[in-house]
């Protein structure tokens, strides 16, 4: 790998990210140069100062509440037929958002779909973070052959169009919440790995790591207790965007009928409404609004976190 020293100059703001480091969300996390960890208070107060982020937090809290309460609010199978078909929204008190082509309640579907979307979004992100941080930390800290091998693997996974790979992965497994999350994690880990690698590479040269090493700390301890907390800020920003894109991916898969057929999901509701666009477009429209609100909330939070944790924008970086 050629040294790209020209890009590494700190404070050189107008240089583009080097071709080797092209995170998916490059437009948000341009600056991967690490900073001392922002304190938790700093994050909270930054979120408070940022009204759009508050809106995001409120929407996300609402969706989470709906997901958690859906078994209480809408007991029974959301796939069960509960009324006459093609009831428009607001036409009946029993079905505030109307019913679909089979007479299933749309509000109950949206509420139960929130559970599915959030669960897959969170578990896929958690899995992707663990995989990505582990690989990136190893590559960045060890360097040498380990780095070369892992970087090659990252490059392979980032070259393959991710949605095509996702479709292949889903095609070879039985779709369920577990396999969908795993497939999405396999598609998304390289972004995190690339980011973590860059962080670990620059942090391992810092004095505090040298100090830890001279104190005789083990590599594992240095990686987990010394470097990781300092590498977290950009990874946290990416995590919120990852949840959003995991939700989008899951919905696209279930829209095409490649998701878990046994649960109701926003994507599958949109897919089933597709046949009736001409006469009853609301069947597809409403679950889409749920996706939009949830993803929008996550993106708003991601933006605010980026502003709070991005050292360049805070201007207080040494």
């Amino acid at each position, binding site marked *: 790998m*050629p*040294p*790209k*020293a*020209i890009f590494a100059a700190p404070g050189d*703001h*107008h*240089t*583009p*990210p080097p*071709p080797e480091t*092209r995170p998916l969300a*490059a*437009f948000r996390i*341009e600056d991967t140069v690490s900073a001392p960890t922002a304190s938790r208070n700093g994050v909270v107060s930054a979120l408070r100062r940022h009204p759009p982020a508050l809106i995001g937090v409120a929407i996300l809290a609402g969706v989470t509440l709906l997901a958690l309460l859906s078994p209480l609010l809408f007991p029974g199978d959301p796939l069960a037929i509960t009324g006459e078909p093609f009831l428009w929204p607001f036409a009946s008190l029993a079905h505030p958002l109307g019913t679909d082509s089979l007479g299933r309640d749309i509000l109950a579907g949206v509420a139960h779909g929130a559970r599915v979307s959030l669960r897959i979004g969170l578990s896929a992100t958690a899995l992707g973070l663990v995989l990505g941080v582990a690989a990136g930390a190893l590559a960045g800290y060890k360097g040498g052959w380990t780095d070369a091998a892992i970087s*090659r*693997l990252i*490059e*392979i996974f*980032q*070259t*393959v*169009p*991710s*949605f*095509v*790979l*996702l*479709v*292949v*992965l*889903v*095609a*070879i497994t039985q779709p369920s919440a577990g396999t969908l999350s795993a497939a999405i994690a396999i598609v998304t880990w390289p972004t995190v790995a690339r980011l973590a690698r860059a962080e670990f590479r620059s942090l391992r040269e810092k004095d505090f790591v040298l100090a830890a090493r001279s104190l005789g700390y083990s590599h594992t301890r240095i990686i987990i207790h010394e470097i990781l907390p300092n590498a977290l800020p950009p990874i946290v920003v990416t995590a919120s965007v990852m949840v*959003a894109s995991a939700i*989008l991916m899951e*919905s*696209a898969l279930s*829209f*095409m009928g*490649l998701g878990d057929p046994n649960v109701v999901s926003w*994507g599958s509701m*949109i897919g089933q409404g*597709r046949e009736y*666009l*001409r006469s009853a*477009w609301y069947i*597809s*429209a409403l679950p*889409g609004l749920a*996706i*939009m609100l949830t*993803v*929008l909330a996550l*993106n*708003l939070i991601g*933006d605010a976190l980026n502003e709070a944790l991005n050292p360049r924008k805070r201007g207080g970086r040494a």
Partner: protein
Amino acid sequence: MKRHLPRLARIAGHAGLRALPTAIGIVILGFFLLQQAPGDAVDVLSGESGGLSTEAAAALRHHAGLDQPVLSQLAAYLTGLAHGDLGWSARFNVPVTSLILQRLPGSLLLSGTALVVSVLAGAALGALMAAREGSWADRGLSVAALLFYSLPSFWISLMLIVVFSIHLGWLPSGGSQTIGGPEGGLAGLLDHARYMVLPVTSLSLFYIAIYARLVRVAMIEARAQDYVRTARAKGLSESRILIRHILRNALLPLTTVAGMHLGGMLGGGVVVETVYGWPGLGRLAYESVIGRDFRVLLGILLLSSLLVIVANALVDILQGLLDPRVGVSHAA
């Protein structure tokens, strides 16, 4: 210009050298992934035709090479690949290569147009937002960008169909040309273009949102640089400063992400092409998943990865042209 050439050649050579092991890795990864798939195309055919006799199924498997051990299947696959042969599609009963090449132009046309539209619209909107930073136009466009950034493309597709095809009746809701409509000539071209408007829009909106945000930030950042102050102090005109000094630097990050988004567009094409019934690789991928024809799926995976590799190499070269610093340190 003379000194450009060896540098660009070096960048291109570098990109090629880097791409080769990646390409080989992708072939092997893809092949072993699809070996994990339960059932093969012959199973599906047998299910659909109401059951094949064991002998007929075995004959079909033998014909498609599905009865060989895994490693010899890989060896046969690699040998074939070296000759541009991706194997035989048991599902469509044609060579995979010709099946894919037949769909390739449709996909390239769709994602290429979407990429160009996204870059142009994104750069224009981003520049506008940066020029009016903090104004209502900037805020409104920022909110719109965030909204479109949060919408799934398949949902946008359906809603565009509801509005523009069903209610207004302006544009067709699917297909790629009017059946029995004008062939060739300007009329045929226009007819084709009408069918492209909605798919291209559905695919682009997400990327326009990304690029607008990106260019906005890059331009605001670039114009605060010292070299812009220097240029202004030299007495250069504002338009010259905007184009030569600010925009040129602000476009660098755009070329990086736009190149890597080709893969995203090809992937997004799976959904959008399926919705609009557009004859491209994406819809073929969907059809081959449903038909469990993994050879076709593998071929699509490889070809779309190859396109991404080519796009990345082109971006490296383009950046060499835009940024004289790129590639200078490679010689060291």
